[in-house]
């Protein structure tokens, strides 16, 4: 098991992970980052769009980041 630290920013609230979570390897940590980013995105109001960034590091360095971008675009009025 390796300890990974997940720093998360959803634009409104940023958390720095001091505890860390143990996962068997990088793939499991990536899956956790994706699930976390999408479930945090589910709780957001997207009226202006939103971006959830999960930066994952071990005790030494930044390893990867998962980003979920929510974008709400009004469709242009039909000109035809």
């Amino acid at each position, binding site marked *: 098991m390796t300890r990974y630290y*997940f720093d*998360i920013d959803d634009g409104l*609230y940023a*958390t720095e*992970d001091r*505890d860390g*979570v143990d996962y068997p390897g990088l793939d499991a940590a990536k899956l*956790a*980052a994706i*699930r*976390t980013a999408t*479930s*945090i995105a*589910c*709780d957001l109001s997207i009226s202006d769009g939103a971006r959830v960034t*999960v930066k994952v590091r071990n005790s030494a360095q930044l390893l990867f980041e998962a980003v979920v971008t929510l974008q709400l675009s009004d469709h242009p009025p039909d000109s035809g």
Partner: protein
Amino acid sequence: MDRTSPADTLLKRLRISADINEADERAIRRLPINIKRIGGNEPIVSFGDRPPACCLVIEGFVLRSKNVGEGERQILAFHQPGDIPDLQSLYLHIMDHDVSSMGECVLGFIAHGPLRSLVRSQPNIAEVLWRDTLIDAALFREWICNVGQRSGASRLAHLVVEIYTRLKAVGLVNGLSFDFPVTQVLLGEAVGLSTVHVNRVLQQLRGEGLLEIDRGTITILDETRLKNKADFDPLYLHLNPSL
């Protein structure tokens, strides 16, 4: 355990949500209860088992869970002293989920035979246990609402307020603090969030001055605001026997 008998634990718990007369109490006290102490994180009964007895939680905490897909687990319920988490095995003979200990526990096993005789000879006890089973179902309905509709922060807040309210009813809280041997992994499995998401939400709730979890002790810092965050209404716990 010292001065109170296992039957006392059960009676105290049942009296919170139902009326029990003296004849019922005598009959419950005559039940043979086989006491066992088990370690943390150990199976008590598992999916597919045909248990010969129901298990009364005397000390400590127990959880019910179901394995889903490959290696995922959903926690279905947490149980506290006085609960009989596998009461259903009296009538549903094959377990459809798992029951396991959280921390170290003292359990009282009540064989199905004497329990069935009790229910048949004391109709009031049958009604009390039926009511208890219905309350169990009410908790499951609330948990469905929790994992299906609430935000991450509300889910965790709701779970904590529920556990606090149920423990307070049997006198197992110390002010706004209570012992509950939960980990972030278990919390995630109970509310359908990743451990990482739980970690973040707990930081957020602590930062907002709502609650704090430290090595098996949960402290509510602001009860009113936590209940608001949780969207909590205690009606579903049916803690008043006259209602």
